[in-house]
């Protein structure tokens, strides 16, 4: 499984398809922290919210790295389960890079109004993971060969990110709201329903995406 993920990541990085979504993520984070005072949890919550659209884009780019012939060669070579597991591992690796970058940037550059405590850093990583995972789950539903055009996924991902806000189901807004506290001990309770909702979404989206992929390949 790790060999599959490694191959996919090497090709993804070599393809430079990661550049645009990563710049989207990085520029958002940099702009967000440009204006002090940047209270630790609330600003980090807003940065985590930015990971929702950014990671949806990056995951979509990653899942579409392989052209059909190469993807089919990989599936035939390693089997569908190992291929899917390798993809998932690759997605998790990208998510880890994005969440660490988003969390580490204000800490390493001293952008917070005060040094972040360890429990706050853990909460920031959790918030980043939740929003990034939700974005990745969305991308898994519209990658190739499930949808063979580019316009439909772009509309779907943009629509889902935007429409989730008035529909009150946006993981970005909910996470930012849960993190908007001065007391770190109050945040886990606020994040719990959000965590449950995203776990449920992923439990539905990932198998559904895998099933649709096999039917459409």
């Amino acid at each position, binding site marked *: 499984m790790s060999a599959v993920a490694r191959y996919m990541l090497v090709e993804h990085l070599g393809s430079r398809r990661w550049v645009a979504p990563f710049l989207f993520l990085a520029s958002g984070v940099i702009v967000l922290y440009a204006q002090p005072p940047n209270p630790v949890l609330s600003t980090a919550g807003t940065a985590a919210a930015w990971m929702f659209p950014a990671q949806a884009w990056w995951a979509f780019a990653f899942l579409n790295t*392989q052209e059909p012939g190469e993807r089919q060669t990989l599936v035939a*070579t390693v089997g*569908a389960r190992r291929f899917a597991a390798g993809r998932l591992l690759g997605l998790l690796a990208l998510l880890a890079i994005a969440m660490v970058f988003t969390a580490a940037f204000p800490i390493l550059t001293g952008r917070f109004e005060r040094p972040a405590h360890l429990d706050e850093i853990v909460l920031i990583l959790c918030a980043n993971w939740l929003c990034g995972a939700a974005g990745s789950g969305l991308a898994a539903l519209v990658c190739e060969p499930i949808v063979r055009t580019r316009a439909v996924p772009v509309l779907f991902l943009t629509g889902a990110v935007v429409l989730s806000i008035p529909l009150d189901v946006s993981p970005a807004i909910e996470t930012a709201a849960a993190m908007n506290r001065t007391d770190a001990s109050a945040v886990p309770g606020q994040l719990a329903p959000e965590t449950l909702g995203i776990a449920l979404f992923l439990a539905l989206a990932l198998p559904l995406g895998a099933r649709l992929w096999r039917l*459409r390949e």
Partner: protein
Amino acid sequence: MVSCAGVRKRYGLGRPWVLKGIDAEVAAGQIVHVGGSNGAGKSTLLRILSGASVPTDGARELAPGAGVGYVPENTNPPRGLTAGRYLRHHVRLRGLSNGAGEEVEPLAVALRCEHFLSEPMTTLSKGSLRKFTLIQALLGAPRLLVLDEPFTGLDVDAQEVLAGLLAERARDGAAVVFSDHREGGRRMAATERWEIVAGVRREEEARAPEVGGSDAEFVFWGGPA
């Protein structure tokens, strides 16, 4: 080695059926030539036999533990990899030991592409790219080889080398299934020919000599040598 029963395939609800009920079986040592006109469903059938795709209806079964080597009809080069690195990745993907990587050099020499091992895949010609995708399919001696238009883009010498390599693999017990839509050209030995017409399999037109038998190693479909 691999079989399919009642296989039907379409690429989405409301889309036309590409395969309309195919029963087929390939045994160890067989070389099957899949023929048919454009759009008949050859590539779809090969994808299903290889496991790259699943049938919408019906079943495909592969012998337990049989590795699969697959070459698709069209391949775009993976970006950011040299040909050598691409093949090393495929050695790892197959779970082979580093020693299995020693297969790469002789195969590259046989197909006369060893000089391109350090070249980026994106700079290779169509024929060279084809050779490296063929080499990845042959690594680790998979028991099932499924090759979609494997001779396309290859020069005549490389076509002969490839035909010899595949015949050798079949003699060693591998099952080989390949498509080749050209007519009149030299064909490799085939023990069976399937004709796919509009998503169904027509009865075999002819039966060629057994591979490794006393007959000539190569037979020619559609014309003299």
